[in-house]
């Protein structure tokens, strides 16, 4: 077994344990939020996984943009592999964030869905990145596909900061958890909730890194298959 693969396996186990620890902290250790009904109190614990999912998806789309720029600058396929791998993980966690947010909304807002600025812009992000894969699947030539996808990947990312700032720019019912100024009084979380929240964010970030490394390995193998096919004259 190659040394790098062994290292990846160790990192995978650490990431898995981190997510499990985050679940225990979120469900058992984190304090109850004050002034909520029992139903809302349980639902409030969703944020410890919902927000990291949303963060992870935005990070993933940011990496897609970086990979796209890297490809356009260098023309190396590895950058395109990074962009597509990260976009796939981003879509999965956008779905997870939207679904878990919708479940949280039922007890908190008394509705599964509303066309609030955050929800609307986040849905647009999801659709834009689904279209990214539709665009890729429409092109046969790898170099042409990578070039078009790279340009699209850069422009699609514009939707991500708009989504992030939507709850600060426009009138919305979506809570703002992270303070938007130096004044920590503005935080939507109490001081006792924050360590669990940040632990969960860190655990999900490591989880993302591990998923990305595994997904890149898949792209590397695909590249090898293409090379062998070329050697065989396919």
């Amino acid at each position: 077994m190659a040394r790098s693969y062994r290292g990846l396996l160790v990192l995978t186990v650490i990431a898995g344990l981190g997510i499990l620890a985050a679940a225990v902290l979120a469900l058992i250790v984190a304090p109850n939020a004050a002034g909520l009904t029992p139903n809302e109190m349980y639902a409030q614990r969703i944020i410890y996984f919902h927000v990291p999912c949303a963060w992870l998806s935005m990070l993933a789309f940011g990496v897609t943009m970086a990979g796209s720029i890297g490809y356009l600058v260098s023309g190396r396929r590895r950058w395109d592999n990074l962009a597509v791998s990260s976009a796939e993980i981003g879509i999965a966690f956008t779905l997870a964030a939207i679904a878990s947010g919708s479940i949280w909304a039922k007890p908190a807002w008394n509705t599964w869905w509303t066309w609030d600025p955050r929800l609307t812009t986040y849905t647009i992000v999801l659709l834009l990145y689904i279209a990214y894969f539709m665009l890729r699947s429409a092109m046969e030539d790898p170099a042409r596909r990578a070039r078009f996808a790279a340009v699209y990947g850069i422009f699609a990312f514009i939707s991500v900061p708009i989504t992030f700032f939507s709850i600060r720019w426009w009138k919305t019912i979506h809570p703002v958890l992270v303070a938007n100024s130096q004044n920590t009084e503005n935080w939507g979380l109490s001081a006792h909730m924050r360590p669990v929240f940040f632990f969960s964010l860190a655990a999900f970030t490591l989880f993302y890194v591990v998923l990305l490394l595994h997904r890149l390995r898949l792209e590397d193998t695909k590249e090898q298959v293409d090379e062998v096919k070329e050697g065989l004259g396919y």
Partner: protein
Amino acid sequence: MTYLVGAYLIIWVVSFALILSMVFRQRKIDQELAVLSEALQDREEGR
């Protein structure tokens, strides 16, 4: 409580679906690579 369980369940299901899809694709592509490499080797030996 139902909402909490539902939300966590969805996140776990999405995560496992992504991991499983990656595992199956990796397995399939590894098999394809092995078959193609063998074919390439056979061709080179036949020359």
